[in-house]
């Protein structure tokens, strides 16, 4: 595994380009120069003083639709520290993917006409939302990697896996022959069986798990500090999902990579996350360190979701289901968005919106009744 991550030449070139390209000193970027040796760019930015790698503040994303303006993300704030795996969980329509897409800069005016984004997304010292396209592209290309649910959508069917991965490697300015060797190293690093042959395989010749490994290799070619993974294993079978999760955890260890993990699956969260943010109707409703969140969820939505998961047998009792449906994101609202479905609601909830507030050192909850010990 080791030689995969060692590519001092590439690092230096890239750092150089940044300094020259936009006049920002290398150390304005997260991680640059934080440590000595060839590992420097890959280690955490200001890890020692606890500076976050990514910090999202008051992010709001809305889309103009035929029925009016639809709120996808509504004032979400969170931050991710270096090496940390932060999971955003929630059900369909909660805004978790829109949040990820905003961070990745995928909601440009051309990609998503009619969208409106406000707030700040700070990566190192830059606000990604305020960067011109070319600079954003440079930051993304060299510091933020992404993988998605369906790797087949992300791979070009007309080129071999080796060729496509090589494009990412060539950005380091390597010669063609050494680039191909590096692709091979990457393929070994992501544990692709028979990597020489996979170089020449087309996407359709690979299984779902292998395709996702190729995507990971491609992403690693750029030595990112942050990986955004949007439902990376949802389309895969359980045994293949396990292999990919193992690989992602291994990469975090050997690559010091932070992750923003978007998922609806509490099992994957249990297995991988350090901290968790639970989203509902475009808002972050609860956030905590993963053990504490599972041990003592405080928002009624989080509690109900956890009790809705089947564990054991039906003789063990009924599952909790959440009555009602998501509020219409185009309708204006007052008070708490979970009001209609909440078993704990009181009068105040109908008129005053509970904002996310700190309950403990690691814990934030958006519920008026979060402090009450005895909850049903």
């Amino acid at each position: 595994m080791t030689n995969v991550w060692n590519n001092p030449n590439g690092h230096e070139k890239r750092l150089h380009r940044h300094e020259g390209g936009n006049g920002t000193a290398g150390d304005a970027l997260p991680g640059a120069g934080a440590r000595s040796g060839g590992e420097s760019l890959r280690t955490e930015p200001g890890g020692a003083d606890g500076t976050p790698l990514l910090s999202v503040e008051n992010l709001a994303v809305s889309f103009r639709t035929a029925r009016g303006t639809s709120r996808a993300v509504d004032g979400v704030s969170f931050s991710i520290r270096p090496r940390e795996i932060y999971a955003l969980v929630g059900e369909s329509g909660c805004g978790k993917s829109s949040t990820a897409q905003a961070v990745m800069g995928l909601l440009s005016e051309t990609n998503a006409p009619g969208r409106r984004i406000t707030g700040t997304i700070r990566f190192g010292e830059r606000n990604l939302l305020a960067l011109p396209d070319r600079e954003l592209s440079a930051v993304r290309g060299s510091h933020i990697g992404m993988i998605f649910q369906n790797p087949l959508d992300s791979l070009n069917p007309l080129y071999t896996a080796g060729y496509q991965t090589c494009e990412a490697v060539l950005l380091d300015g390597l010669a063609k022959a050494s680039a191909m060797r590096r692709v091979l190293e990457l393929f070994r690093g992501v544990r692709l069986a028979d990597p020489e042959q996979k170089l020449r395989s087309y996407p359709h010749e690979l299984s779902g798990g292998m395709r996702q490994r190729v995507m990971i290799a491609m992403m690693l070619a750029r030595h990112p500090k942050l990986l955004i993974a949007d439902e990376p294993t949802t389309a895969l079978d359980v045994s293949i999902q396990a292999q990919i999760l193992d690989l992602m955890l291994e990469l975090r260890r050997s690559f010091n990579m932070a992750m923003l993990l978007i998922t609806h699956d509490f099992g994957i969260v249990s297995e991988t996350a350090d901290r968790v943010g639970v989203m509902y109707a475009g808002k972050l409703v609860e956030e905590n360190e993963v053990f504490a969140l599972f041990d003592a969820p405080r928002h009624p939505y989080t509690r109900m979701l956890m009790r809705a998961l089947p564990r054991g047998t039906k003789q063990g009792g009924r599952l909790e289901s959440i009555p009602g449906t998501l509020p219409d994101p185009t309708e204006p609202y007052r008070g708490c968005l979970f009001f209609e479905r909440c078993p704990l609601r009181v009068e105040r909830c109908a008129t005053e919106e509970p904002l996310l507030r700190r309950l403990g050192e690691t814990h934030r909850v958006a519920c008026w009744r979060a402090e009450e010990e005895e909850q049903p």
Partner: protein
Amino acid sequence: MTGAHPLLDVRHLKKHFRVSGGFLRKPGTVRAVDDVSFRLAAGKTLGLVGESGSGKTTVARLVLRLLACTSGEILLDGENLATAPPGEMKRLRRKMSVVFQDPNASLNPRMTIRRSLERPLQVNQEGTANPEERILEAIARVHLREEVLHRYPHQLSGGQQQRVCVARAMLLRPRLLVLDEPTSALDISVQAQVLNVLTDLQRTLGLAYLFISHDLNVVRYVSDHTAVMYLGRIVETGPSEMVFENALHPYTQGLFFASPPTSPRERGRRRTLLSSDPPSLLDLPPGCRLAPRCPYRTDLCDTEEPAMREAAPGHFVACHRISE
């Protein structure tokens, strides 16, 4: 598996698909379902688990006779569905019904929910004297309100749509319901609604469920018996608590070890037992199908397919490691 007269008795069921050769493709035979036998008693649930390509959905389609089997018997209440002539099938079909994964694809977008529910009654000329009563009863059983009857599918949430599908499947009072990944497309909270409705219906109407899913937690929750499929074969079957508490086949163990825990406290329990990907169905290994991925493989596994053996009363496993 249970009592003397199971409602559904499937014996040596096979479905082979011939794949014709073509550009860059060799001709061959895909043995999608290869000698599968199981029984399901009235009022009980059999969970069929397996990953993509295991043949679980093909089994469902064969039982419903949406596909004709290559060989074998499918006895529903003692009558063989595999050989029943078309006229007979129409009568036999009323004893069984189906709910698919994607409710949005199962409901006609141009019909109101009422229309969708009237159709099975009209087609089968049943309850025509008072269709309204039957429809209202069905809707109430899945905990939906009367208002949904005037709606179109797109006006309902995924969970409501799926409950309409369950209501429709119930209309003709079948005895067997085939559920093919009925909650896989749904969110957790909605999945809970549908599972609760299914549990209630079984309790009040004594329905038998053939429940197909890749989600082990869901299968464990709903099933009395569980059968695990791998590449067209059942590799392990028995009462759910035996299969889940004491999995004996390496594939079943691999599946359980691979599935993520339900709480971070169990983190690290997961491990990878099965390496690589399953082989192609067109090119199966000569001995045990799991041999190339199995951590316990011996020479015997490479040459001889293991037969089903009873490891404990009612608990059957197809693995050479199990001695009688």
